[in-house]
């Protein structure tokens, strides 16, 4: 369970999120909203990369303020641009980066890596430099680098952004099959149409909260667009 308790956050004096109170326990949650609505900040509050000015974010009883590193082991974050998330020169080095950081042994790291590479069809490419991968493969690599840490929750920040149509379909299917609880920030409504819950962020507050269809309709209305 991820809880936001009276969370507020500002940057350079300007409020970005104001008094957010939430309990996120559903398996598939969507976060939608316009640019500047605070979505990116929201994502980073969940895994503790940013801590609130007021209030607390609590993940399975762990405070992001006091237990950031442990929270980050539970919550994986897949960033918008894979190019800026892949940190090591080759596929296998990048996959090993996270486990190595937390002190996982070589044998266990290799076991997890082999399983993920096999399962997602990248085994043949494990020795390749990251820049030799296609866009879709890079995105997949960033997901695997998160999965290898065995998180309980995964936050996706605009996952469809850097992908072409074919890659988008494949990645959406991949996301669909994940056993973890997902929190997906997106403006791709098709992606989250079947989700359990959607939250609409507007000017730093939760403007709507409920089934995706309802929330998306509320969003369209707020933009002055008739239901299409």
């Amino acid at each position, binding site marked *: 369970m991820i809880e936001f308790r009276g969370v507020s956050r500002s940057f350079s004096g300007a409020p970005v999120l104001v008094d957010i109170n939430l309990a996120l326990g559903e398996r598939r949650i969507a976060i939608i909203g316009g640019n500047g609505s605070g979505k990116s900040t929201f994502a*980073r509050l969940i*895994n503790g*990369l940013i801590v609130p000015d007021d209030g607390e974010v609590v993940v399975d009883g762990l405070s992001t303020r006091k237990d*950031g*590193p442990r929270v*980050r*082991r539970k919550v*994986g*974050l897949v*960033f918008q*641009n894979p*190019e*800026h*998330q*892949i*940190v*090591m*020169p080759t596929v296998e*080095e990048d996959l*090993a*980066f*996270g*486990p*190595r*950081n*937390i*002190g*996982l*042994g*070589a044998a266990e*790291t290799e076991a997890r890596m082999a399983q993920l590479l096999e399962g997602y069809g990248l085994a043949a490419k494990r020795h390749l*430099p*990251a*820049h030799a991968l296609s866009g879709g493969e890079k995105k997949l690599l960033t997901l695997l*680098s*998160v999965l290898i*840490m065995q998180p309980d929750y995964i936050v996706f920040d605009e996952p469809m952004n850097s992908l072409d149509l074919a890659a988008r379909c494949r990645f959406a299917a991949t996301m669909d099959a994940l056993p973890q609880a997902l929190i997906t920030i997106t403006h791709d409504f098709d992606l989250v149409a079947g989700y359990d819950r959607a939250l609409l962020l507007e000017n730093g507050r939760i403007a709507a909260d409920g089934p995706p269809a309802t929330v998306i309709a509320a969003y369209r209305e707020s933009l002055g667009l008739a239901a299409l």
Partner: protein
Amino acid sequence: MQRYSPGDSPIHRAAPGAKLVALFAIGVLIALLSSTPALAALSALIMALFLIARLSVRDTAQALSPVILVAAAVFALQWWLTGIGEALRSVLRIFALVLAASLVTLTTPFSRMIDTLAAAAGPLAAFGFNPARFGLAAALVIRFIPVLMNDFREIEMARAARGSRRPALGAAGPLIIKTLRMTDTLSEAILARGFETREEAMRGGGRSDAAR
């Protein structure tokens, strides 16, 4: 992407630290020797080491190629200024030094060399040197060279498409800004994957991390 030539000779297996010390000694020796026979003997000795390391002619040529033209120019100049004896000695010194140094590089894998250099920098911990950060920085350089080149080409093409007269030149500024923006996301991505845990462990001086 390395200048390392894989092999299993005694020289390959020797500790990088020892090789660096030996290189330093050879350097001193080269500076001190002043007779042509002595320098020739030293050069022959180094070539013998190349043989022991089972390095190929190609490796040797590669080691010398950066300095061939300089050596030729120096030879010509010295011959004209001082005489053939000094010309020969100058060239022998250059070759001996470059060959000895290249021998170390050719027989030491990149990762071992980096580890040795990081360990040697241990005393700098007082100034804030952190082996984990160093290793990360080294890997980041290798990872991002092709990414930056790609970004540069993309910006350049976009400028050319808009009719810019000197697309390459004008692309430099935007590339730098893009690089600066990239830094924030990268730092977040690194932290999000637990890097601070490793940093703590390495800063504490203990080797808590069994995975290599």
